[in-house]
């Protein structure tokens, strides 16, 4: 969980920047996400050594290498399992998981479901470019039906999923949508996501200029508009209204509820387990294997 902001030193966005040059293509939407993350971290004064950024594999998953915290660019699809280990074993560390739509929704989809269900203490930022970027342009679970890609010569025969709709059904307790072209909005949403206790899912539409052309950015920009004020974020049915959208791209907080996080619950278990008594010791446990009669 987030460490209490220290009084000194005050971190500025640049403090969270490593000196590794991003491999991203000029114009890639992920630059926007990275900048927004730096700012959000600074706004919350996250302690670098008490923060961990974990990712899978993909262009977007290169992000941890550019953030001056403990970072792990793991294997394709496993960002959330790794994040689970960090978050549960080190409740004092703020854990941020990032990755792409292929990484998080295709190969990693199951971990997304169960991390959300457990209300894992992790902020998960998905950079959705509706394509597999790093492997040079194959269809993704968010690629619209009919689109041509390197592996859909005749147009994508498969329907796409809406990551935010999935997150709600999985049991995520905070669900938001952003557009990396809107830096200010993205910063705001990342801040809120980081402040949430439990599993916060933010889907950031982050254009891939190389494999989705310049149109993607243009159309997203044209479609993006904030969720109308007064939206009831506590209702699943209401949240549904802003999913599977075609003509618009609603950005903002879709859904938010406050329930105990996984670490809250595991804390309770430790207390019940000890029932006020002293913690167990190995010799003590060994004794329980002696026939006692």
């Amino acid at each position, binding site marked *: 969980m987030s460490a209490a902001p220290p009084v000194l030193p005050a971190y500025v966005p640049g403090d969270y920047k*490593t000196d*590794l040059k991003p491999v991203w293509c000029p114009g890639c939407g992920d630059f926007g996400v990275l900048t927004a993350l730096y700012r959000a971290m600074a706004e919350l004064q996250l302690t*670098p*050594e*008490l*923060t*961990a*950024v*974990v990712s899978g*594999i993909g262009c977007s998953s290169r992000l*941890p*290498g550019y*953030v*001056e*915290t*403990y*970072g*792990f*660019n*793991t*294997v394709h699809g*496993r960002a*959330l*399992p*790794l*994040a*689970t*280990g*960090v978050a*549960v*074993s*080190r409740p*004092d*560390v703020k854990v941020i998981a990032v990755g792409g739509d292929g990484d998080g929704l295709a190969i990693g989809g*199951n*971990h997304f*479901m*169960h991390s959300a269900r*457990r209300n894992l203490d992790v902020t998960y930022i998905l950079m959705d470019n509706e394509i597999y970027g790093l492997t040079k342009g194959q269809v993704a679970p968010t690629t619209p039906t009919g689109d041509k890609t390197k592996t859909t010569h005749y147009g994508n025969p498969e329907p796409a999923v809406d990551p935010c709709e999935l997150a709600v059904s999985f049991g995520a307790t905070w669900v938001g949508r952003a557009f990396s072209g809107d830096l200010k909005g993205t910063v705001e949403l990342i801040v809120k996501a980081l402040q949430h206790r439990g599993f916060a899912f933010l889907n950031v539409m982050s254009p891939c200029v190389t494999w989705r052309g310049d149109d993607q950015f243009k159309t997203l920009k044209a479609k993006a508009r904030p969720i109308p004020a007064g939206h009831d974020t506590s209702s699943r049915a209401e949240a549904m209204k802003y999913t599977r959208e075609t003509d618009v791209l609603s950005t903002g907080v879709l859904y938010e509820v406050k329930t105990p996080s996984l670490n809250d619950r*595991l804390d309770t*278990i*430790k207390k*019940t*387990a*000890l029932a006020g008594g002293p*913690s*167990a*010791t*190995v010799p003590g*446990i*060994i*004794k329980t*294997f*002696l*026939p*006692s*009669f």
Partner: protein
Amino acid sequence: MVGAGGDGIVTMGDILSQAGARDGLNVIKTEAYGPQIRGGESSCVVRLSPDAIYEQGDAVDVLTVFSWADFGRFKGEVQPAPNAVVLFDEADPVARTKEDLGLGADAHWIAVPFSKLAGDAGAKGSKNVVGLGVLTALVGLPQATIRRAIEKRFGRKKAAVGELALKAFDAGMLHGATLASLKDRGITFTPGSAKLLMSGNEASALGALHAGCRFFAGYPITPSTEILQFAEEWLPKMGGSVVQTEDELAAIGAVVGASFAGVKSMTATSGPGLSLMTEMLGLATMAEVPCVVVDVQRGGPSTGLPTKSEQSDLWQAVFAGHGDAPRVVIAASDVEDCFHATVEAFNISEEFQLPVIVLTDQSVGQRRETLDPARLVHKVIDRAVPTAAELADYKRYRDTPEGFSPMSVPGMKGGIYQTNGLEHDEEGRPASMHVVHEKMNDKRYRKLKPIREKYTRVRRFGPEKADLGIVCWGSSKGAVKEALLMAEERGQKVAAFIPDMIFPFPVKALEEFLKSVKQVLVIEISFAAQFYKYLRTFTTLPENTLLFKRSGGKNLTISEVDDQIRTFFAKSGDRQKGAA
């Protein structure tokens, strides 16, 4: 003891083995069930002895059968000795004879009114306790202790139930007394101090706690699930956490994550789960993150024989994974060893920052064995974290003579680093140049040298010079040790070499052993002879090396080993005659 579901065979075995452990006897107990998920036939074999025992033993001296029909379902699995004492229910509709079981003249064939006695005692369901009574009187078992065990077991919830059970026990005793005593067939001993009664899986989990494991992620799978269950019950009491993940991919992933965060972590699984962990183990090797995986082997391939033992995950443990990915493999050969092997696994993993796999199997993992509590101690080694000086100019993957370098953990200010599963330089930055790859491969493999020098646990049994030298691993140890004793009595010189370290393998020690014996016999429970072929990768076995291998589904028996030894000496005898 064999019976139908509901006959309480398992309870009967529990009480008997607990009583034995209580009185300081050496006990080994195994259970077996039919395919039915529940309510099917079950059998339980308990071996009691004042002397050291290493195996379940091939044939039972005293057989109690509540249902001949069910006995038939364990054909080949529960085998009475030729001179066995056999007790069966006179009310059993199915009839069998001494001859049917191929027993000798000196066997004792005794019909007992189990059901009737139980009914008369007012506890219809207590055939098993009646049986215990009869046995106690007939072959002479520690009566007082068994009574207390029964009281404890049944009186726990309701005292009345306990008393009823004791009534049934006494009824059995009385009936037993009416039979010609067979005390000579029982065991004579002076009660010693109580021993622990533990399964290999419990010992593995205990070893983990002892080593300092405070995070466990796992997914249930037979025959390893008891480790997860044990961790889930005890870790919270020690300030640790357990997550039952959605699958094995997540389990090993979470373990690597927690270890990256600085917490000793492990998972446990069986073959199918280990196969699914293949890719993530490669990441642990590449990013040099410590982690321990206990693989309780079962029959394969695929779902195979989930409840039966086999030694066929050796190749998977040693060779699986794309790329050149060094990791350590340790084997456990009995219940106590499960404890030590697991602690050792953590020590090696934490010191050298690479994954360690512990291979046990169903036969060791699920059988219960008595242990001397005093022996459950083992030195614990912790991970090297960077000193303030080292943090001054910290490189996560600094190229050191021993191949590993201090590992910082979240919270260390100067220790911040970003890592990955790509090839990387000493700072952990992605680098795909051949020169960097060669250098870092060399760094990762260099760790094996100090490991090989520091961890040389091998077991050698038998005379210093022998005519036959058996090389085997893991759970084969028990049967081989007992067969060695038999050979010794016959004055035959047989030695055995049983490594705990599978990879890196104690090659020197093996080659000395090979020199010390006239002929070598490799024994393993793998149709593909995985161990034999693995040995060949690093050592040249003598031309005339013998191999005894077969599929699992049945544990290696003492007589199988004994037969191999006898045949060998018979043949070599002939050769000598021939020579003469």
